[in-house]
């Protein structure tokens, strides 16, 4: 009797077994990865800069593309503070973007030479698949050599990936 009961329980357990599907889709995409958020150094009273020799760090953004010749990368260094203490004068902004590292030196080797500068924005034609790291440098200089007030300064760089 017990043996019959155990056998039927086992049969019920097997009857309840389910298969769980795991699905995925592979499709072309552009992924923007914020690799390193930058830091401003303060080499003198009136300058904030991401330059390494002045104690700063450049922001680094990485683009991963899985379809060749399908995307543009447009990167704009900061042109204003998004938050800051009171500013005693006008701030002058300077910035630059450059290719830092590439995953495919052959296919991506000309990215920097071929980039298009439109105003403050640098446009790169992502002609190869893989990863590209871009360094974003930024310098803010207070007018009249006036000092930046003590506090935290934040300025936003923009990284855009546009389908062609």
């Amino acid at each position, binding site marked *: 009797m017990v043996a019959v009961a155990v056998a039927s329980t086992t049969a019920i357990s097997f009857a309840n077994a389910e298969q769980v599907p795991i699905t995925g889709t592979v*499709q072309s*995409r552009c992924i*923007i990865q*914020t690799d390193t958020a*930058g830091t401003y150094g303060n080499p003198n009273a009136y300058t904030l800069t991401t330059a390494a020799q002045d104690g700063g760090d450049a922001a680094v953004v990485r683009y991963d593309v899985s379809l060749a010749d399908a995307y543009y990368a447009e990167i704009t260094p900061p042109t204003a503070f998004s938050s800051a203490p009171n500013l005693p004068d006008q701030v002058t902004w300077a910035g630059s973007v450059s290719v830092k590292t590439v995953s495919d030196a052959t296919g991506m080797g000309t990215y920097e030479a071929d980039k298009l500068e439109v105003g403050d924005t640098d446009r790169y034609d992502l002609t190869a698949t893989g990863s590209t790291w871009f360094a974003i440098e930024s310098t803010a200089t207070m007018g009249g050599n006036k000092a930046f007030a003590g506090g*935290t300064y934040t300025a936003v760089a923009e990284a855009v990936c546009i389908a062609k």
Partner: protein
Amino acid sequence: MKMLKYIIVGLLLALPVQAHEMVPTYPRLEISHMDGLLKTTMKMFNKRADVEYYEVGVFDKNFEPVPFVTAYNVFKLEYLGHVTFDIYIRARDKERAVYVCSKSKLRKGSNTNTPISSKICSKFEDKR
């Protein structure tokens, strides 16, 4: 030397990263269940721990806004969260509408000096 370069790239790829992702790259506008409206479906994935909100927009070839409807123009997407959302545009705007973009919304009190705002723009398939 070439091997060293591969090792450096490999190490960089292995570092923890914060990513913003939206697919498809070339969405297709289809007839919706409502008269005069076309629909497309987009998917997003948030791997940016520093971003909780994203804004969606539809734009013409000059990045001028095109009217559209979606559940939320600005929506919350938790870290490692996925979302699928529908975008509706008027059939008469079909020729104007070129891009669907999603943009990260950064908090004002960010802990970093130069946070990065990310924006991904897909292009409607018939505009390729």
